[in-house]
């Protein structure tokens, strides 16, 4: 029995991300939510109670019967049910103000990570180390990080339900939030402000790992891409540099340095392609190169109509970007 309850609870926590806070910021909101839910349920019960009482306690109307007593109101009752809700909302306001302080403290002068929303992917720049990544943001466990949120084109919204509040990224109006993970794990994040065709696939992952692993990851991100060793991959690199790939993408260690699209220097370490639409498998990578529009309709990367040979070469090269 107990086991059932536990598994039910963990199942609920699995599904309902907002009720599964993994940071002090999100937990403050969750705690407040519980208070509000209790208050709401009580009010709901009172009104439903009055209605049920009214409907069940008194006889139904019958044709031709004399109408009941025409009571038209009661001043004291009115004052009571104006004053009590007023008191409740005042209390809720105070609690809300307190929660706002805990879940969203003022930003420090220098953010740890700068997040930039693009149509339809996320860019993250680590200010300390200078690492630039896309769609997969690693953070050290237990450390509150200050995020600066910006957008390159339209409005987006940065939301990781388990870890923090959501916040819109507004071009020309940088916003700030705090994020923290108490336990190692991978947390799914969403863009929650409609931002155009592929708004649905603008997911990202927050990977929380212990400090030393995080450090290793950051160092790895700073390493330039090795020059490819296999023949196919070398041809792939040549192709990458000849074609218009370089107009959008950067790969450290090559001539490609454009910041329009995601930085591909460590593409092969990422778990997903296209901001969450497919897993990063060799198969999917080839599908993507063959025609990105087939995988993610409307994505800003056009169909380059590569030949099968070119696709293989490019994929072989890109898979070396560890």
């Amino acid at each position, binding site marked *: 029995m107990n086991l059932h309850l536990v598994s039910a609870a963990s199942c609920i926590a699995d599904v309902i*991300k907002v009720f599964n806070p993994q940071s002090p910021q999100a937990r403050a909101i969750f705690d407040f*939510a519980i208070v509000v839910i209790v208050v709401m349920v009580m009010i709901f019960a009172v009104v439903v109670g009055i209605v049920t009482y009214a409907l069940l306690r008194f006889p139904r109307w019958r044709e031709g019967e004399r109408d009941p007593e025409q009571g038209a109101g009661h001043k004291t009752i009115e004052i009571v049910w*104006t004053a009590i809700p007023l008191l409740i909302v005042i209390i809720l306001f105070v609690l809300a103000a307190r929660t706002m302080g805990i879940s969203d403290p003022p930003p420090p002068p220098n953010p740890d990570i700068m997040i930039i929303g693009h*149509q339809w992917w996320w860019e993250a720049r680590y200010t300390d180390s200078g690492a630039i990544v896309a769609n997969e943001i690693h953070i050290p466990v237990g450390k509150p990080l200050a995020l600066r949120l910006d957008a390159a084109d339209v409005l987006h919204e940065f939301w990781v339900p388990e870890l923090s509040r959501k916040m819109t990224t507004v071009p020309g109006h940088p916003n700030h939030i705090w994020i923290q993970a108490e336990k190692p794990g991978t947390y799914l994040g969403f863009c929650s402000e409609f931002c*155009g065709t592929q708004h649905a696939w603008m997911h990202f992952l927050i990977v929380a790992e212990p400090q030393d692993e995080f450090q290793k990851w950051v160092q790895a991100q700073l390493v330039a891409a090795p020059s490819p060793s296999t023949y196919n991959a070398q041809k792939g690199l040549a192709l990458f540099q000849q074609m218009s790939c370089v107009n959008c993408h950067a790969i450290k260690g090559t001539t490609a340095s454009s910041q329009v699209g995601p930085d591909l220097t460590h593409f092969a370490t990422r778990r997903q392609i296209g901001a969450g639409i497919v897993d990063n498998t060799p198969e999917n990578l080839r599908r993507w190169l063959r025609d990105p529009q087939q995988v993610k309709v409307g994505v800003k990367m056009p169909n380059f109509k590569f030949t099968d040979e070119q696709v293989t070469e490019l994929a072989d090269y890109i898979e070396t970007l560890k």
Partner: protein
Amino acid sequence: MNGDTTVTGTVSHLLTPEERQHWKLSWLSTVDHKRIGVLYMVTGLVFFVFAGIEALLIRLQLMVPNNTLLGPDTYNWMFTMHGTTMIFLVAMPVLFGIMNYILPLQIGARDMAFPRLNALGVWLVPFGGILLHFSFLAGGPPMVGWFAYTPLSETPYSSQLGVDYWAVSLLVLGIGSVSAGINFIVTVLTQRAPGMTLRRLPLFSWMIFMNAFLVILALPILNAGLVMLLIDRLLGGRFFLPFGGGSAIMWQHIFWAFGHPEVYIVAIPAFAILSEVIPVFSRKPIFGHEFVAASTVVIVILSLLVWAHHMFTVGLGRAVDLFFVAASVLIAVPTGVKLFNWSATMVGGRVRFTTPMLFCVAALLQFLLGGLTGVSHALAPLDWQTKNSYYLVAHFHNVFVGLIVFAILGGIYYWFPKMSGRMMSERIGKWTFWLMTIGFNLTFMIQHVLGLAGMPRRTYTYPDLPGWGWMNMVSTIGALFMTAASILFVWDLVRSLLRGKPAGDNPWNAWTLEWATTSPPPHENFDALPPIRSRRPLWDYENPDRPDPVVPVGGALDTFRPGKNAAGMITFIISEAGFFGVLILAYLFYNATTQSGAGARELDVLKTTIFSICLFASSFTIWRSEVAERRNNHGKMKVWLVATILLGGIFIVGQGLEYWTLFQRGVTVGLDLFATTFFTLTGFHGLHVCVGLIALMIVLGVGFTRTFKKRHLPALGPVGLYWHFVDVVWLLVFSIVYLWPLIR
């Protein structure tokens, strides 16, 4: 079956014998408030079919994870059109239809104050709706959501014409709604039956009266925002483009300054229906009439004050968030007062579970939930988690469907006998009710959980995360129930219209004046009216042994009955003031810091001062003209009128010259923020001057015709008011645009 003859047969009792020959034309050309009401509702019903099919397709697409029934762009235009259509082309027209039909009857009037304006308002609805849907033929419908957040809705990110059609269509609908709002206000003020003092207004009429103020205050804000968006898109303006110096957040302020009151514009009529239906079927007067009425006023005012709670996640800063949490949660108090009073009305009553009552009780409970989740959105920290998730979708559908659609259905079941003379089927009605209630709650209850599970709104598909699949499936199944209920409802409408039981004058034994006439009412509504001493004249009439306490006449304003032309013009001016207010605030905001480049320095203050003096002088001349008219000195009146037109003309020519000089120097709308705001503000003022000039010329022309030689010119007063208003606006604009840079 020949459709024409059948319809002619059923609606024959609505037509005079002469009209029967040309029933189509008599409906198209009607100025009768009852027919206009029906036209509003039928238009709303037609668009409901469109938006309903869109909703169903949206739900079918979301039925299973990674579904491919609809592509992303198809899905995106579908939810945009669904939202826009449901709010502007379904909820508002249907409610305006009910208001149009019932309000004049309930206050004992023969018709609305301005029947022709009323006809204009109703025909603008299909016009606006067709414009919106014309985008399908002109490069693709809008794909920006119903609030079209900038910069996504700006040309660089939505280059097709869809957004332009969307904006123009909303502008047309907005103008139509303002005209209807003006008409409702003036009708209540000037067309009430003798004895129907303001304090004796039944709650429905009182709430519609209050709501009309919200309409004329809120819609112009949207109109101003829309013209700014259109100037950005069509003339290369820079209002909302961050990369051109504009502000993306400004659009949100303008939109929600309209958008939040808009929620109440459609919710208050629903409150009004509940306040009418629940007492009648509890066989008791409403509990605490005064408190329900006063809480409406409080809601109207507060609703104008709290729009920033739609923007808690935009990053307005802690201070703004806190103040707006405080203001927003306060709305819960007057809303709660309403809910408590409706519930208390049923206590001690003899409840009749007719279909309208069932819908209204369900609306009450569903709105209770929607209101409570609304409080959770007003509390910023919770909003930070739930905004833009399916929790929000569930919340506002609880209000829009759970309250408003249910109230509309209740209202239609309640007043259909009055409108058609026939009863709707109780049996089918109860089926509709249960299907609708089960369907609605299946569809939207689960969405609260979906939102807390992290599903963002407006996503065309979703990954197969634990729980998401089955919850969406449940929601879609609910939508199928609602579809069935809708089809059943329409079928019942048609069936009852053709073969319903005759209703009689007062089938529900209700107490307000609309039931004191035949069903459907004759052309000018009443043969005779019972005396009006309380809020329930028919109760007093039928229960002489225990009448309601007489509501005393108190204060001059209780029986206030201004002239309808002046009242109409003043309400119009109030709404225009809102429009210019937004443009002026935008000008001040964008020009608060001195711009580099061509700015106010390019303006020739001296020349404009001279032209402005001409315009200000014309206020004097038109006043003289009015004085002359009052003294029956028609010659002098015309001379002063001509002088006014000349002075106004000089001003317009002067402004034209100024524009020309600026264009010569390369200062055009798209140059910089100063130019964009300058041309928008002065241009719209110029447009108003031109409209005023045309109106003055018409008045002058009428003055010259023979017919009016011996009579008064009733139009001169209102046109004069309008002209003064235009001058006052210029006084402000002139001080801000031309004089302010000199002193700072």
